[in-house]
């Protein structure tokens, strides 16, 4: 991941301009930073710095299995996105490139507590009786 450029700053400012409610980003980083985790942290700090409705908490101490199990993460670096309720959304790897705009959209949706799914989909989801854990594997762009 390269440094944050003007384009990224513009995208970030647009993305967090009208958050409906405060959003918390929890960043679980390894206790020994690398170039990629430093860049990831810088990106999150840029997002948090663009709005007083974004709160970033960096947890970069030694791995705490009990604490990490409580929030449901099994590895670092991990980003938790939540606003009031924790929706179980975790990012592993920096949301940069095209993924940045998606990440900001997730922040807005969490802030609004609104999924944006079609009514037919929402009706199907309401019938869910067993937990589902999704892993979406993406590539850097």
């Amino acid at each position, binding site marked *: 991941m390269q440094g944050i450029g003007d384009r990224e700053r513009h995208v970030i400012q647009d993305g967090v301009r009208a958050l409906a409610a405060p959003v918390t980003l929890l960043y679980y980083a390894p206790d020994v930073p690398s170039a990629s985790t430093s860049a990831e942290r810088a990106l999150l700090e840029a997002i948090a710095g663009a709005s007083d409705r974004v709160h970033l908490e960096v947890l970069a101490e030694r791995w705490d299995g009990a604490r990490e199990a409580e929030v449901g993460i099994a590895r670092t670096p991990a980003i938790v996105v939540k606003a009031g309720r924790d929706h179980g959304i975790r990012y592993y790897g920096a949301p940069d490139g095209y993924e940045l705009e998606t990440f900001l959209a997730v922040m807005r949706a969490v802030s609004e507590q609104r999924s944006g799914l079609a009514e037919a989909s929402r009706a199907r989801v309401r019938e869910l009786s067993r937990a589902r854990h999704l*892993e979406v594997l993406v590539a850097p762009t």
Partner: protein
Amino acid sequence: MSLSTRLAIEHPQITTDVVNIAVLPYLAVRHRVDDVPTTVVNGKKVCVGALPEDEFVRRVLGQSRRTGISTARAAASRRAS
């Protein structure tokens, strides 16, 4: 915004990890990823690439889809009985 994160916002029993395979390449090997995005549900690969919302939700929830062929077969079966 991805459908997986929409689903997580919609229902408290759905959780979503968005995984950059450059950071966790072993997951790409484990799930035999040959294209992205690849979606895995409860450890099982359910779709590769982008899908329409309706189809994606069906696959994630494990709901079968009545296709045109199965509908025609069901109708033929009803006529025969």
